[in-house]
């Protein structure tokens, strides 16, 4: 069993993707033995109206909710996010995705604190996207800097039990913040973990219980995440934890 914690659906504005609808993603998943994928709307990165983006996602996964599990994109720096969150809860979403760089706030922003408090009250997990795409390849007139994580220790200190995934970070990041992970519900996905057997280095830094299988498909080749697990030579409980155990626990 493999749960992919990091997939999106919808047309990427800057490139034609082959597998950006439900049928395409499910086809990729079938080919690689992926049981379930957590999905969010690409539109949530770019729209102002998050309710519309989240609604589009639900339309897209209709009939496939057993395998495509929807996460709502919420923007705490935009008025009315409280209602977006409420609607998302009623509509069957299971967690919240945040894009602080695309939505122009940082981890120290008090509005983020308010949102995380509300997410905690719902007993939901939250995923923070460090990077959607390498900055060097952004559109000429849409240069979005990566998320700064200097404020992460304060966030974790304030919300120690909140299940939180950071998507798109590296094993070097894991080493830098290794002291933060013990006893928390903090996770890193492997979608941008590079280096030779880099996932093994990530596991060594923070423990397998804090690492999630995540591919960033269909923007990335889904197979990259599968091969990274193979490259790391992980076996037994560590491998199972990363492939599905942690994800299952995280969604409660």
């Amino acid at each position, binding site marked *: 069993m493999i749960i992919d914690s990091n997939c999106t659906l919808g047309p990427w504005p800057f*490139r*034609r*993707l*082959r*597998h950006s609808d439900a049928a395409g993603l499910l086809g990729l998943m079938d080919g690689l033995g992926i049981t379930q994928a957590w999905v969010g709307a690409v539109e949530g990165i770019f729209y102002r109206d998050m309710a519309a983006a989240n609604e589009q996602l639900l339309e897209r996964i209709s009939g496939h909710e057993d395998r495509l599990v929807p996460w709502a994109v919420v923007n705490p720096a935009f008025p009315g996010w409280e209602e977006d969150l409420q609607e998302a809860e009623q509509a069957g979403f299971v967690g919240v995705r945040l894009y602080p760089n695309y939505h122009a706030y940082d981890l120290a922003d008090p509005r983020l604190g308010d949102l995380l408090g509300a997410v905690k009250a719902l007993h939901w997990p939250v995923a923070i996207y460090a990077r959607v*795409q*390498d*900055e*060097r*390849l*952004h*559109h*000429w007139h849409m*240069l979005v800097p990566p998320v700064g994580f200097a404020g992460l220790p304060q966030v974790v200190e304030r919300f120690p039990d909140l299940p939180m995934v950071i998507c798109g970070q590296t094993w070097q990041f894991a080493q830098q913040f290794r002291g933060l992970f013990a006893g928390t519900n903090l996770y890193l996905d492997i979608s*941008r*973990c*590079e*280096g*030779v*057997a*880099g996932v093994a*280095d990530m596991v060594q830094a923070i423990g397998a219980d804090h690492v999630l299988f995540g591919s960033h*498909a*269909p*923007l*990335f*080749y*889904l*197979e*990259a995440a*599968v*091969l*990274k697990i*193979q*490259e790391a*030579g992980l076996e037994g409980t560590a491998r199972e934890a990363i492939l599905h155990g942690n994800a299952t626990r995280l969604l409660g």
Partner: protein
Amino acid sequence: MVIDCHIHLMPHPGETQAQAARRTLAAMDRLGIDKACVSLGDRLIVQPNATELREQNAWVASTVALAPDRFIGFVYCSPNHPELSLELIEEYAVRGGFRGIKLWVCQLADHAGNDAICRRAAQLGLPVLAHTWVKVTGNMPTESTPDHLVTLARRHPDVNFIMAHAGGDWERGLRTVRHVPHIYPDTCGNDPEAGFTELAVALVGAERLVFGSDATGRSFASQLAKVTGADITDDQKRLILGDNLERLMPA
């Protein structure tokens, strides 16, 4: 046969060369990568002086010596030191069994200092692996784009060039070299963005795409998946993963 055209053996802090080589070979084994072409040194030096250029090539030679059936050396040359570069080609390629040349970022690829190096590469039938990137955030002043490589390649029609990173901005890089048949894009050194390999096959053909990873900075897996995970035929994958490179290198 799967051959990676582009790795650098850079140890973790505190790790010996032999340990880094073992860790690298173990990862290659787990992914079925038979051989890897090694270039540069134990660390990245943007402007290597003569001593550093010698040291970096010696590092590659001692890496290859650790596993001569798995590692293939590429001679790191510098257009700032053309005479020394020719000496290094004699020492490491003619007498030492290295099978390619590496150009990195100390000058733009079209620098005149590269001409003597390329003339010798033509005589010996050595492919030239040349760094290219187009960063919307800005290149280093001496960092080549695919356009610089095209200029050099037009001056040396009898040399086969491997365009590292397919230009970084691969949609641009592939278009730039599409009609320059002796430039071979490699697959490595950026995120495994879906569509890369399919576009490369459509624009330059599977016969002109070469698998590389840019390990040890990059993951072998993330770069290999660009090929194995692409919607192309098994024959095309075989060409990209090793057959093309085997054809480009002298025996």
